[in-house]
């Protein structure tokens, strides 16, 4: 009998896990905000900076990234546990709070994916746009309100940022407070919760140490063959959208989950509670498990998809080994030093490898040639250098020297070339 009660008490620690994971999300989120800048020209740079330069930055970001996935899963498990305990009768507030937290945590995850403004973020923002736009009746309006305009832009990023770091955390905080003040703290979070919560944190901490949070290529650098995938908590939705024609996606992705959450919130006042909640949660579990498995299988069975993921993983690994590439911010009225400083575009695109003053550089095994006295060499006139910036191969240069046709205008190339030919040892 006693061990049976003991067992029950341990099962009830799903509360403790959710509380600890929520705290981890709040703390790591606050820390990330100390470096992150929500603007389209600096978001990716600041996230790269957190990953590559800031001490413990990769770990903190990984805790936040995977923590959000674990949190969603454990809130879901928590809801199922409350259902099995018939909490919607015994403790209405506990039940409603858990359902609300589930919805809010999903929304937090959805808005969070956009913030690094990498290729994954780009696609996830597009999907959010499509889901909103496809809503019956209110679709076009919902889309405009979500994006802050008619296109995805800096306004969209600011909106997702404000929702993710201000609105949703405040709502989660309010729900948790409401839940707490209606019960004794000891009831909510006992020593058992502390133990299980700590174990869960240890597992997440080790996981985050081993697995840095993914960061795709920047939107500008992503190739057409880039394959985005959402985080684990959204794989079911991602896979479902493959089977659903066009506008119906919004119904499955937004309307149905919204109705299910609303019904579950209202459950304490409904009849046939066990049947309604049981079938909704049961269907939910079945859908999530089947769709997540299907998405895993379809990605692993197709060799071409698997190869592309391997390429992406290799590219991300290579990116991690490269030194951090700072953004250039010009606060001066004049863009170049009055009598011969490096052009701003040189500093932005060339200086990382060729040195701020053209002195060359070495990064690991790679040696980048100095540009001093380059004018004395054959085929290095201003026109030649402009041509070389467009098509390095035509001038006999090997990668990693690349074409800058997509990054620089003719005028900017000329400005760089005219500066380079003046460099002397």
């Amino acid at each position, binding site marked *: 009998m006693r061990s049976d009660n003991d067992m029950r008490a341990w099962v009830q620690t799903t509360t403790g896990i959710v509380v600890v994971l929520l705290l981890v999300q709040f703390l790591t989120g606050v820390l990330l905000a100390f470096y992150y800048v929500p603007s389209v020209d600096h978001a990716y740079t600041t996230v790269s900076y957190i990953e590559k330069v800031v001490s413990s930055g990769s770990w903190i970001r990984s805790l936040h990234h995977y923590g959000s996935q674990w949190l969603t899963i454990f809130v879901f498990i928590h809801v199922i546990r409350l259902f099995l305990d018939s909490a919607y009768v015994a403790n209405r507030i506990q039940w409603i709070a858990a359902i609300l937290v589930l919805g809010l945590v999903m929304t937090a995850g959805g808005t969070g994916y956009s913030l690094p403004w990498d290729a994954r973020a780009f696609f996830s923002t597009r999907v959010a746009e499509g889901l909103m736009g496809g809503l019956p009746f209110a679709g076009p309006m919902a889309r405009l309100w979500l994006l802050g305009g008619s296109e995805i832009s800096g306004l969209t990023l600011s909106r997702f940022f404000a929702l993710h770091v201000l609105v949703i955390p405040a709502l989660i905080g309010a729900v948790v407070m409401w839940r707490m003040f209606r019960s004794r703290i000891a009831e909510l979070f006992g020593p058992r919760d502390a133990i299980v919560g700590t174990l869960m944190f240890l597992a997440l901490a080790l996981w985050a140490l081993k697995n840095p949070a993914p960061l795709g290529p920047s939107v500008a650098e992503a190739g057409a063959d880039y394959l985005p995938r959402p985080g684990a908590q959204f794989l079911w939705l991602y896979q479902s959208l493959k089977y659903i024609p066009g506008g119906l996606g919004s119904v499955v992705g937004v309307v149905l989950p919204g109705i299910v959450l609303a019904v579950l919130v209202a459950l304490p006042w409904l009849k046939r509670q066990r049947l309604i909640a049981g079938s909704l949660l049961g269907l939910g579990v079945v859908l999530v498990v089947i769709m997540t498995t299907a998405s895993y299988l379809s990605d692993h069975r197709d060799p071409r998809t698997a190869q592309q993921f391997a390429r992406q993983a290799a590219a991300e690994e290579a990116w991690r080994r490269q030194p951090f590439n700072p953004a250039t911010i010009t606060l001066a009225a004049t863009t170049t*030093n009055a009598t011969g400083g490096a052009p701003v575009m040189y500093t932005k695109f060339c200086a990382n490898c060729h040195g701020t003053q053209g002195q060359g550089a070495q990064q690991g095994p790679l040696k980048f040639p100095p540009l001093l006295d380059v004018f004395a060499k054959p085929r290095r006139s201003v026109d030649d250098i402009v041509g070389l910036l467009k098509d390095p191969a035509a001038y006999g240069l090997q990668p990693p020297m690349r074409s800058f046709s997509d990054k620089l205008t003719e005028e900017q190339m000329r400005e760089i070339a005219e500066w380079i030919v003046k460099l002397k040892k």
Partner: protein
Amino acid sequence: MNMDTSRRSFLKFLPLAAVFASIGSAAFRFLRPKLSAATDAWLDVASVSELTGPQPISRKIVAEQITGWAITTDEHNVFVLPAKNNQVVSAICPHEGCEVAWEQNRNRFSCPCHESYFAADGSRISGPAQRGLDALPARVQDGKLQVQYISNEQATRA
């Protein structure tokens, strides 16, 4: 609840304290300020041939600094003193860091913030500033006057 059980229940929460200690120590490293790398680049001020006359000449230099995730290009005001063998002084007041202006009719530099005054050679005349305007390391290269930029904070430390 007597002392003993309350101490025991407190101990049961110790593992949780370890969680926050580990995040806390990471947070300390995470938030530790980054000192920006001092640049020792020589920045062009002007051609030597332009620098004539008894008056200080106001010039802007553009200095690049790596601060955290950005390379910032800042403009700084300096004064060339042709009367003092082309010495270059920073326009930053050594008192609280406002920028001094040259008052031609009164032949002095004045600080707009707290009324510090400096002579045409940069030396202190009066006011709360404790020293004259800071001279910047200068050299002449290929007929151009060049300086290394030193911030007020660096000059005060030195």
